[in-house]
């Protein structure tokens, strides 16, 4: 087995055992990126020198016994909306094309404390607004399973990098499915934690009440290890939650005896692809045979999650993105007449179409006369959706369903009809509104060989149940194939 085919936890064990080093692993991965990334475009920024310098430092700490965790020495890819000190952070936008942060996001710092080595920054939909990674100002990312298809989004670069073995694991962010959906399209594991579990400090905000950072990994074991490393209480994020149950690796148990699993009928209606449906239900059968108690139920309100989400997310985005004004950092237009004209021209030239669309919608729903009818209405519907999940979790430990209605669409087929694209988020978006944790993991492939994702949703703070169920399913399923086998 090539070193780049190892999981993160396997690699860290090999480094601890002295059979390889962090520097060797980083070099092998950088070489692979150099060969493959011309094709897939997973990365916006890769800095070989910085990566190798970090790897040397981490390796010496491992040898000195100062670092011995399950991820020590392992190279990671970071979504380009997380600040990294001294390393370009663009949010895949022209407006941040030259932005070099002076501090590092708390989640990334937590990884560095655990001995991570940053390989580079991954491509995404501009400001995380999109479902395909096609709205990036730095080119589209291609799905490693089939380069005619999108990797999903917005964390498409991170998911594709994990799938193409262009990193050992990656961080993404999830506002309405932006970790789970690309994980599903790319055949990787992806998890959105309970809101407040991972600090948002240094994550460039999109929809602050919905955004969470989480792992994209090759398997569930890595997912648990990464989540354990990044979860922390942080006074710099006022929505951060102090938890004492973040030993997520302790949940890696092959056991679902008595686990109550609910399958929402609402998630299996019109619009769901037949092959996706069959693969997801087959996974449920497998868990039932292992002793889980599986039954169908009506979740309700599913069709209202997307309109509520786009109202809230656009409102928060219009407010959060006001900071991009051409004064403190980032792009400033060349020619302007006075301050206000500079603001307007800078923003109009610096933001892409989808970002402008959401800022406009958000400004509208927050404007006087419409605030109650749209924004507050959406917040009321959010309360109803949360209540529907509360009712479901009084009966079930885990909700099981698809991640997305289809496998990865073809490049260029999504952006022309935004509402159709938004409908692709139907199974992921309510999770963010309700602040819940959810995991996506591969459960099969369609007739064209594109991966299908299984989604497990838990009640707030029940990540361990998700990890245990996902780990058990992974044992039933067996190893998932790799997207890219040979490197020429």
């Amino acid at each position, binding site marked *: 087995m090539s070193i780049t085919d190892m999981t993160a936890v396997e690699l860290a064990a090999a480094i601890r055992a002295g059979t390889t080093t962090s520097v060797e692993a980083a070099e092998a991965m950088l070489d692979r990126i150099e060969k493959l990334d011309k094709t897939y475009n997973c990365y916006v920024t890769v800095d070989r020198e910085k990566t190798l310098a970090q790897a040397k430092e981490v390796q010496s700490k491992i040898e000195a016994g100062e670092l011995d965790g399950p991820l020590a020495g392992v190279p990671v890819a970071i979504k380009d909306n997380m600040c990294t000190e001294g390393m370009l952070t663009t949010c895949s936008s022209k407006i941040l094309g030259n932005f070099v942060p002076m501090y590092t996001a708390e989640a990334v710092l937590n990884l560095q404390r655990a001995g991570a080595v940053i390989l580079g920054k991954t491509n995404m939909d501009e400001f995380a607004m999109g479902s395909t990674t096609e709205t990036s100002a730095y080119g589209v990312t291609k799905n490693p399973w089939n380069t005619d298809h999108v990797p999903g989004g917005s964390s498409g670069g991170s998911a594709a990098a994990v799938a193409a073995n262009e990193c050992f694991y990656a961080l993404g962010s999830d506002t309405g499915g932006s970790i789970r959906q690309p994980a599903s399209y790319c055949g990787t594991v992806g998890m959105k934690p309970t809101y407040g579990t991972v600090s948002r400090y240094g994550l460039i905000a999109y929809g602050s009440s919905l955004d969470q950072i989480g792992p994209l990994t090759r398997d569930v074991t890595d997912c648990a290890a990464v989540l354990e490393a990044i979860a922390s209480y942080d006074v710099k994020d006022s929505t951060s939650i102090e938890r004492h149950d973040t030993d997520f690796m302790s949940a890696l148990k092959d056991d679902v005896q008595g686990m109550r699993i609910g399958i929402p009928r609402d998630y299996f209606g019109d619009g769901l692809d037949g092959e996706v449906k069959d693969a997801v239900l087959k996974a449920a059968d497998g868990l039932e045979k292992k002793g889980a108690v599986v039954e169908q139920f009506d979740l309700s309100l599913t069709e209202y999650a997307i309109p509520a989400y786009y109202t809230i997310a656009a409102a928060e985005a219009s407010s959060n993105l006001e900071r991009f004004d051409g004064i403190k950092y980032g792009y400033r237009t060349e020619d302007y007449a006075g301050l206000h004209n500079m603001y307007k021209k800078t923003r109009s030239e610096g933001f892409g179409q989808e970002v402008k669309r959401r800022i406009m919608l958000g400004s509208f729903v927050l404007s006087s006369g419409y605030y109650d009818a749209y924004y507050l209405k959406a*917040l009321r519907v959010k309360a109803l959706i949360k209540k529907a999940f509360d009712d479901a979790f009084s009966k079930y430990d885990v909700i099981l369903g698809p991640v997305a209605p289809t496998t990865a669409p073809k490049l260029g087929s999504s952006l022309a009809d935004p509402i159709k694209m938004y409908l692709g988020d139907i199974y992921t978006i309510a999770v963010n509104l309700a602040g819940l944790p959810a995991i996506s993991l591969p459960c099969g492939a369609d007739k064209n060989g594109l991966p299908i994702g299984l989604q497990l949703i838990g009640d707030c703070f029940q990540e361990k149940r998700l990890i245990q169920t996902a780990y058990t399913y992974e044992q039933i399923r067996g190893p998932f194939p790799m997207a890219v086998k040979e490197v020429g």
Partner: protein
Amino acid sequence: MANIISDETIEYVGILAKLELSDEEKEQAKSDMGRMLDYIDKLGELDTTGVEPMSHVFPVQNVFREDVVTNGDMRERLLSNAPEQKDGMFMVPKTFD
């Protein structure tokens, strides 16, 4: 389309959003926003009488901390990202005559 967005509304939203749209972009924005609002109007089907708007899932109240400086002087590094700077300050276009 039930929601017709007028030229005045798009002008007004452009001011709020601090965006300058070309005529072509304005027409596109009118159509996009109209369609999105038609879609969002679906929320009107739900009776939300007596339901409190939920901004955060957990009952997080204001989080206070002592007002003490914890970071050092980072002025030079902060300014290094600015499009224009002068004498240790951000440089902005003339704001009044």
